[in-house]
């Protein structure tokens, strides 16, 4: 039977910790959730020697045990709770050779918690380019720890690291600093009041309150021990930090030599251009535009392939399986539903590849720096940029990306407004309606159709910013907001890490959104294929009778059309018709709108079914033709410029994505916010669509 050693990977952000994790675990990793909170739990298995395995937990990057965001808080909660099943046997502290001094703060803190630690000095392959040299044996003595040099790509130090982990029991757990030197009276009285508790651990728990608000104190019941005020506690924290740096500086003075004349770096030059007051912004926008252009160009090929593949699969299923309702459900509901999800993978994957590359190179921090001022005006943070951009692929991973925003209000506003950005799913709806109702012609060389699309995108962003502005005025917070973001050195991204990130993000989309979409697709199919009463069940007879005297009528399509009208979903569509008529929609569009609550892209598929169902000739007409020839009983067209624009605007603003609502609920831990989103966004959509239809009609 193999033993499992519990290892936690801890370290500052930007130290390549995740690269190390990837090097140790390869693809034996999985991402899940911590119960009750929304931080991602990243864990994996690493094979050590002699059948021993290590269970490795990649904890969120943190600068110290003084948390300033929920993911940093997670680290502390874990390290303070010996009973947690993930409490580590040994902690590998990952540091960056260029920022060793700062990284060591966390190292000394964790060592003081009496957890066995190993110091991994990562990116060691860059040492000579920075003119840094380390006397490892001396440092090991001064810091009282085992030190291993590693590199991001896993070529250096991995086997030594594994060996160290196996021998974790031999690691010393002597503390780095003597707490009583900070304030003798206070700490002495603390230790006599709680003789059974570890002193430093007590101190961490007490001082948490001064920083980040509530923290679960589990078995430590020291709320009564409050002989210091918040500001006094903060002063003690400052003294502690100064003490730590003294300890670290002493060690590094002996064991580290930096010869800056040998340092080669492009950071200064790159920064000068990329954070330039004017060019910095220009470059950012150009990069954004380039990314979007490339994404749409590149993803159309795989998307067409997927489309065809699933259509083929659906017809194949119908041929091969015995005829019947389940076969129909399989082909038209399930396969079509899955196809509708899979088809978005190329777009989403490409977008995340680009975002991941930008993050891995270090450029994203510069973007946060550039955009923070603008964002703050609307109640957002510079860190909101990544979620807002990601929202153009899919709001779900975008909302998950808000976890690193420190301030609660800024984070909440970002979560609430991100769904306004034009996500991939709205695109098929936009494209078909634009093709249907926007006239040919161009303005300054750009077609009206392309312009309309661009304006819809801008509308999405504009609305996001505008509602952030409003929310900022309404929501009150007493927590001060601050921004402290590290500007890491520029690095060449490690391909393996980018690919693993993209895989994980795309997987979260497919699983989170996908399952919901599939379930709702099934339900909708059933609602469209069954109906109450005679009208539905006797459709064949009714229609045959009705059209007995007529010639040149396609009986099949008439029956299908009648059935649809009297199916459950048809009844629902008809019942909401009075509400949507003022917006220019008929009951068929109404069905499409309802179906879109599963996923917006379902709209097009649903309409395809509805309109082709009514027009099943031997000659297949394209969806566009079917829709454009659709008329009301008085002969007037259903899809006019007015109703088209109204529909476009409705989709731009309505909150229809059930999957997004589910994620918002999860991330905000309450029903209040997603419900508000649903109601208010749908209301806005209705009003805007109404006004535009009435004006244009």
């Amino acid at each position: 039977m193999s033993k499992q050693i519990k290892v936690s990977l801890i370290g500052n952000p930007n130290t390549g910790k995740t690269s190390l994790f990837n090097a140790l675990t390869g693809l034996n990793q999985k991402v899940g959730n911590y119960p009750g909170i929304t931080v991602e739990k990243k864990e994996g298995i690493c094979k050590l020697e002699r059948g021993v395995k290590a269970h490795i937990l990649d904890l969120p990057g943190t600068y110290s045990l003084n948390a300033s965001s929920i993911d940093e808080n997670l680290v502390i909660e874990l390290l303070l709770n010996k009973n947690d099943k993930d409490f580590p046997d040994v902690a590998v502290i990952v540091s960056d050779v260029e920022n060793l001094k700062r990284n060591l703060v966390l190292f000394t803190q964790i060592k003081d918690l009496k957890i066995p630690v190993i110091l991994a000095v990562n990116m060691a392959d860059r040492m000579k380019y920075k003119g840094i040299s380390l006397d490892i044996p001396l440092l090991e003595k001064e810091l009282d720890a085992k030190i291993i040099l590693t590199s991001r790509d896993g070529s250096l130090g991995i086997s030594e690291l594994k060996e160290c982990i196996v021998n974790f029991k031999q690691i010393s757990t002597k503390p780095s600093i003597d707490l009583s030197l900070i304030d003798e009276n206070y700490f002495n009285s603390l230790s006599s009041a709680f003789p059974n508790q570890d002193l430093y651990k007590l101190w961490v728990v007490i001082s948490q309150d001064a920083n980040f608000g509530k923290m679960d104190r589990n078995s430590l019941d020291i709320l009564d021990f409050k002989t210091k005020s918040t500001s006094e506690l903060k002063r003690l924290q400052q003294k502690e930090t100064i003490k730590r740096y003294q300890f670290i500086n002493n060690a590094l003075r002996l064991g580290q030599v930096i010869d800056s004349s040998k340092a080669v770096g492009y950071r200064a030059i790159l920064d000068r251009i990329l954070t330039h007051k004017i060019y910095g912004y220009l470059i950012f926008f150009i990069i954004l535009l380039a990314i979007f252009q490339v994404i749409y160009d590149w993803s159309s090929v795989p998307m067409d392939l997927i489309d065809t593949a699933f259509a083929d699969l659906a017809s194949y299923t119908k041929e091969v399986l015995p005829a019947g309702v389940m076969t129909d459900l399989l082909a038209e509901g399930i396969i079509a539903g899955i196809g509708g999800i899979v088809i978005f993978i190329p777009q989403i994957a490409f977008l995340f590849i680009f975002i991941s590359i930008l993050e891995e190179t270090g450029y994203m921090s510069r973007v946060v720096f550039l955009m923070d001022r603008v964002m703050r005006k609307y109640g957002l943070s510079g860190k909101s940029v990544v979620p807002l951009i990601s929202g153009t692929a899919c709001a779900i991973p975008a909302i998950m990306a808000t976890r690193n925003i420190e301030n609660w209000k800024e984070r909440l506003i970002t979560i609430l407004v991100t769904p306004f950005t034009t996500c991939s799913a709205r695109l098929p709806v936009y494209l078909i309606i634009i093709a249907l109702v926007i006239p040919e012609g161009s303005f300054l060389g750009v077609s009206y159709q392309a312009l309309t699309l661009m304006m819809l995108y801008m509308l999405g962003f504009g609305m996001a910013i505008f509602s952030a502005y409003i929310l900022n005025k309404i929501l009150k917070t007493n927590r001060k907001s601050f921004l402290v973001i590290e500007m890491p050195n520029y690095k060449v991204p490690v391909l393996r890490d980018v690919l693993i990130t993209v895989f994980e993000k795309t997987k979260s989309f497919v699983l989170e959104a996908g399952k919901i979409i599939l379930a709702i697709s099934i339900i909708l199919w059933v609602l469209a294929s069954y109906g109450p009463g005679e009208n539905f069940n006797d459709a064949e007879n009714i229609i045959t009778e009705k059209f007995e005297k007529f010639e040149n009528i396609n009986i099949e399509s008439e029956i299908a059309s009648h059935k649809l009208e009297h199916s459950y979903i048809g009844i629902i569509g008809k019942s909401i018709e009075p509400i949507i008529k003022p917006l220019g929609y008929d009951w068929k569009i109404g069905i499409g709108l309802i179906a879109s609550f599963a996923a917006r892209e379902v709209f097009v598929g649903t309409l395809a079914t509805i309109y082709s169902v009514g027009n099943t000739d031997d000659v297949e007409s394209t969806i566009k033709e079917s829709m454009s020839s659709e008329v009301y009983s008085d002969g007037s067209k259903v899809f006019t410029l007015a109703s088209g624009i109204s529909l476009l605007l409705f989709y731009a603003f309505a909150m229809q994505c059930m999957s997004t609502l589910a994620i918002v609920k999860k991330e905000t831990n309450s029903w209040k916010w997603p419900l508000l989103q649903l109601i208010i966004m749908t209301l806005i959509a209705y009003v805007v669509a109404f006004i535009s239809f009435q004006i244009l009609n």
Partner: protein
Amino acid sequence: MNIIQEILVGITLLISVIYILRKYNIIGGKKSKCSDGNGCGCN
């Protein structure tokens, strides 16, 4: 054969509906979301 198909559709429908209801916490499930023993944040 038709009956079998109808039953299958019914079962699929049931699973879908239950899945949606569980996803939105409208009904509970056998598998609790919280695997941590110390009481969790399931509000």
